[in-house]
């Protein structure tokens, strides 16, 4: 039954997370020098510090036991504490702070994609060859071929420096300020992603509109509204949903990148700092969080296609 199917999917996600956690944990022994050296970083190796690290990371136990204990801590949301990025602060706390900003940015961009990009793509597909379609397609092609950082800098220059509509850096305090600070990065992100999505929805829409079932619906005199919604939009959403996972994941990775350009202190910036400073616990925590996000996104997309497409639903029903 469907519940079993869902549970199996979740189970598969958990397994993937475990594998990821193992890889992440291995980072410690893979980093140059001994694990102890890695954990010490540039700090002076006082005997107390060494002792506390040995105890905290069970460095004298065999590798597998170390992993088990570390995993136990992780499950209790204890990711250790930062070495160099914010020396001594618990990784969980740092992550929580940075994650909020990244999530806000990603959500803002997603909102723009769904309210502007998606409808534009659909409209272009329906009015194929008309002026709207040509304008949208041209825009999408340009956005796809322009590298994201060029676009970011151009937007930054025009709206930030020249027109001064939006602040150039910083995060702002309070809701309105935050929104205005995040607008330029979100627009950049949304433009890059929409370009891909517009092409996809346009193609899906065009494909659907040329299908026999749309022709047959017209021949039966169904209302144009019904044909648009129940026939065209629903069917066109299938291929888009399938690729949504990919789009969302690329949204995530682009966010990391855009944060750099707009110097926003989000997860991306954190990851970069942690890697350059070989702050292993922070790297571990960040990678785990990002990995979990990717797995969750894919799970959500799977479930969404289960809701929309009866064929998938039936496979799920019979298969479980």
């Amino acid at each position, binding site marked *: 039954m469907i519940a079993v199917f869902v549970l199996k999917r979740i189970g598969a996600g958990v397994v993937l997370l475990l594998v990821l956690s193992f890889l992440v944990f291995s980072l410690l022994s893979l980093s140059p020098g001994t694990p102890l050296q890695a954990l010490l970083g540039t700090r002076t190796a006082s005997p107390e510090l060494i002792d506390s690290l040995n105890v905290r990371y069970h460095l004298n136990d065999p590798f597998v036991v170390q992993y088990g204990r570390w995993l136990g801590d992780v499950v209790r949301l204890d990711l250790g504490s930062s070495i160099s990025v914010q020396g001594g602060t618990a990784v969980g706390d740092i992550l929580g702070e940075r994650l909020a900003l990244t999530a806000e940015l990603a959500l803002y961009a997603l909102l723009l994609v769904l309210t502007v990009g998606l409808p534009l793509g659909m409209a272009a597909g329906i009015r194929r060859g008309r002026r709207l379609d040509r304008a949208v397609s041209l825009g999408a092609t340009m956005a796809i071929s322009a590298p994201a950082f060029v676009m970011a800098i151009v937007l930054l220059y025009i709206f930030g420096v020249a027109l001064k509509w939006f602040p150039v850096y910083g995060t702002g305090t309070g809701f309105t300020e935050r929104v205005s600070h995040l607008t330029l990065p979100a627009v950049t992100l949304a433009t890059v992603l929409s370009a891909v999505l517009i092409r996809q929805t346009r193609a899906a829409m065009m494909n659907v509109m040329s299908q026999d079932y749309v022709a047959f619906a017209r*021949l039966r005199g169904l209302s144009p509204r019904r044909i648009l919604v129940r026939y065209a939009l629903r069917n066109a959403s299938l291929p888009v949903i399938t690729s949504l996972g990919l789009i969302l994941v690329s949204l995530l990775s682009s966010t990391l990148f855009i944060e750099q350009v707009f110097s926003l202190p989000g997860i991306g910036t954190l990851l970069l700092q942690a890697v350059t400073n070989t702050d292993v616990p922070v790297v571990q925590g960040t990678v785990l969080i990002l990995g979990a996000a990717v797995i969750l996104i894919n799970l959500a997309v799977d479930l969404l296609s289960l809701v929309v497409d009866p064929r998938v639903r039936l*496979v799920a029903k019979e298969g*479980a």
Partner: protein
Amino acid sequence: MSPAAATDGPLLSVRDLEVRTAAGRTLVHKASFDLKAGEVLGIVGESGSGKTLTARALVQALPEGVVADGDIDFDGTKILQSSARDLRPLRGSRFAMVLQDPFTALNPLQTVHEHIRESLDPKFRAGRVTARAEVERRLAEVGLAKEVADRYPFQLSGGMRQRVVIAAALARDPQLLIADEPTTALDASTQAQVLDLLRTLQRERGMALILITHDLRVAFSVSDSIMVMYSGTVLEHAPASSMSAAPRHPYSLGLLLAEPSVTHYQDTLSFIPGQVPAADTVTSRCAFADRCRWSTPSCTDKAPPLADITRVEDAARHTSACVRIAEIGAQMDDAMRSHAARPGIAPTPTTGAPLLQVTDLGKTYRSNSLLGRRTQTTVLKGVSFTLARGESLGLLGETGSGKTTTARCILGLTAATAGSIELDGVDITDYRRLRGEQRAQVRGKVQVVFQDPYASLNPSLTVGAALSEALSAGAGNERAPSSLEELLGLVGLSSSYAVRKPSALSGGERQRVAIARSLAVGPELLICDEPVAALDVSVQAQVLELLRDIRSRFKTSMLFITHDLSVARQMTDRTLVLRGGEVVEAGPTAQLLDAPEHAYTQSLVAAVSGHAPVTARSDR
């Protein structure tokens, strides 16, 4: 009752219908005809003759880039002069159309119930309970159980889908239904059932029906009158009985004669030589002149008008666009008579040494679903047969009966999961176990001709290049033709074809090239997988003749896969009937078709002879 039905005037009247591309190329030229309420009109003609465009023009549903001109009067509405908005209320309620392919006509995300409910008149659509009851009633009318309502299209067979399509099209009880090849995409026996259903519905409702088909037999069995189209023009329009007894246009005659007989063997299969010209090249002459044996200069001076030639024996108006019909009518009648009177004698089956021995062949597909649960589908079970040298064996059955899987096993395209296959003393059950040189030998002995010549030829290679490649593979075999000219000659093509690409060939020519390619290595066994199913009648006979010729010249054994009983009759010595992966009946073809023993074979035979029992609805 519509005003038209009351006054007995035509329900639909078409005058000088022209269909052109936006660029001005003529596709349909001056089509004119009337249809009375409750009447059935069959439109027949080869692929590309303009049947679909004519039908679509009638309901203003032409594809993009194509425009229509002329007068179409449907019960007082000038269709071509009306706006899409004005026509919408008439769609479904006054006229409706059913498309060829039931597999694509339904919204994959909607249940059957939703499809029918949305098509209903608003007064039934509103209430939940009323709608439910009405949908059930409509389903029952097309012979479907009420449980079907909650299924999605992908859960239904082709025949069931076409029934749903019909129910949806008729949901607002239109006076005219246009059905464009409604059964072409279905299995033979399902075809008969769906046609039966259409006929019954048409009669019960007194609805006018335009049935488009390229199958004359189908047209005769359903229609009151038949209109023959060719190259975008109407050549003859006659009462069905007159058309089948005494066609009054050389093209109609050619079509009738080209239909391979299902009841008896024919010594020669007649066909219409040449090709269909493009519609815009023949607007001012007889379109058929290039292929007509009675053609004289008077035929090409100007376009022959569709003249009234109604005789006493005609049940209704009879028109023909042949200017010489008065002179040649008698000769045409002679041709019809001699065709009917001369059943040929089937050659006595050759009984050479066995070439192919298939024993207890089985094939089971195991698939791991995405959740790890295993499913098994058995597509072949215990299939055994022997094929002698020079013999032609038919494999008869519907889609999914395992015909093609059997062929694929013999060709080594898929591995059998049980049983054995022996070719000329070599065990070829598993091609992977053959040594390299053995495999090459086997490949030289077995060749295949597929159904779709469009898909089986590489579009970027010229005919010459494709065939030379094949010839070099057959070098060294004494049965293989030695030159490209010889090979092209074998399939009746001049060497000028060598420089053409597949896109510049007609369907029949492509199939010839595909046959030539398989002959290049001088095979001993030719597997023909529905070689003429994608071709028009006139071309079908041509390709069948070619295959017969090859068989008698080279003593090639043939495994003839077909769903068409008449093809089996004409092309095979013995026939196996496959159903659900098992052989249900086997025997000499003539005997098997004349006196079928198994109930399934009986139903197949009954279906083609037009005596399908109305109640046998296996796909319900």
